[in-house]
């Protein structure tokens, strides 16, 4: 096992070294003529307004939060998956309980709308209805226009 993992470390090391060497090589042959405008941040050709480090929507945090919980659960499922066949139904029920508990939480966040993005700040009501998909595609396009 050690030798297998040492190749992981070897890969990591070689990867870093490769990047470093390439950057070094590039440094040798690439030109460099910085100026003030060049070093300023790109914002579609305008002067950047304020700093790029803005505080963004808290939604991203919620997504990450739910992810972490699921991730942890998923990690537990891996050892389970390996012994599942040999243990049999007991393992199945154990896992089912585990997953059901998880599902309860999942249903809760789903229900509370944590999985939705807040789409509107003010006219939230208006766009809330979901897309109505009207069956299949019409064969001709002009037939139904008037």
């Amino acid at each position, binding site marked *: 096992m050690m030798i297998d993992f040492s190749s992981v470390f070897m890969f990591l090391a070689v990867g870093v070294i490769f990047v470093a060497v390439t950057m070094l090589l590039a440094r040798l042959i690439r030109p460099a003529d910085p100026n003030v405008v060049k070093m300023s941040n790109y914002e579609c050709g305008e002067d950047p307004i304020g700093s790029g480090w803005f505080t*963004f929507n808290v939604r991203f945090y919620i997504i990450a*939060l739910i992810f972490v919980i699921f991730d942890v659960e998923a*990690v537990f499922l891996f050892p389970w998956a*390996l012994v599942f066949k040999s243990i049999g139904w007991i393992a199945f029920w*154990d896992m089912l309980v585990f997953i059901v508990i998880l599902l309860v939480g999942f249903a809760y966040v789903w229900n509370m709308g944590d999985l939705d993005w807040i789409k509107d700040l003010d006219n939230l009501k208006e766009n809330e209805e979901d897309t109505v998909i009207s069956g299949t595609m019409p064969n001709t396009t002009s037939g139904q226009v008037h």
Partner: protein
Amino acid sequence: MSVNSYTVQAVFFYIFAALIVGSALLVVLLRNIVRSAFALFFTLFGVAGIYILLGADFVGVTQVLIYIGGVLILIVFGVMLTHNVYSVDIFNKLGTLVMGTVSAIVTFTMIYYAIKQVPWLYIGYKANAPTTGPIGRELMTSYLLPFELASVLLVLAMIGAAYLIRSEVKVKKAAGNGGPSGERPADGIRKED
């Protein structure tokens, strides 16, 4: 290869130890909190390496998956969400700094002597074997209850955390009716009085 394997392990150990200690120092010393959050990345990575050195491949990989891929992201998100460009020094006053240093040194000294004092009972050096399957078996048998409890704990944590965040979002939603000019009345009012 026995002798060499130890040597290699030792080399790896020192590399990882250096990585861990160095980056952990960065974590606590850097003034820029975003950077120190990213320094944590290297600490966690080094710890994963240590696990693998210890033959705990599953735990090592889990460390990467959960800590780096999950918890650290949460932390970085948290930092970014509460990031304030104008936030002043994130360190406490000098007094606390001295106190912290002293207590850190004291802690370490104590731990160090404790380790050196205890005559550890080695049961010998176990050969590395696959751990995932056995862990699964243990989880399904002796650790079944904690296993299920962990699930409950996680779900509760998720619900709780989501609730906390959401209550905040609700406030925002209500306040958002003010329109795009976006003066949020609830925000920024320190509830001191």
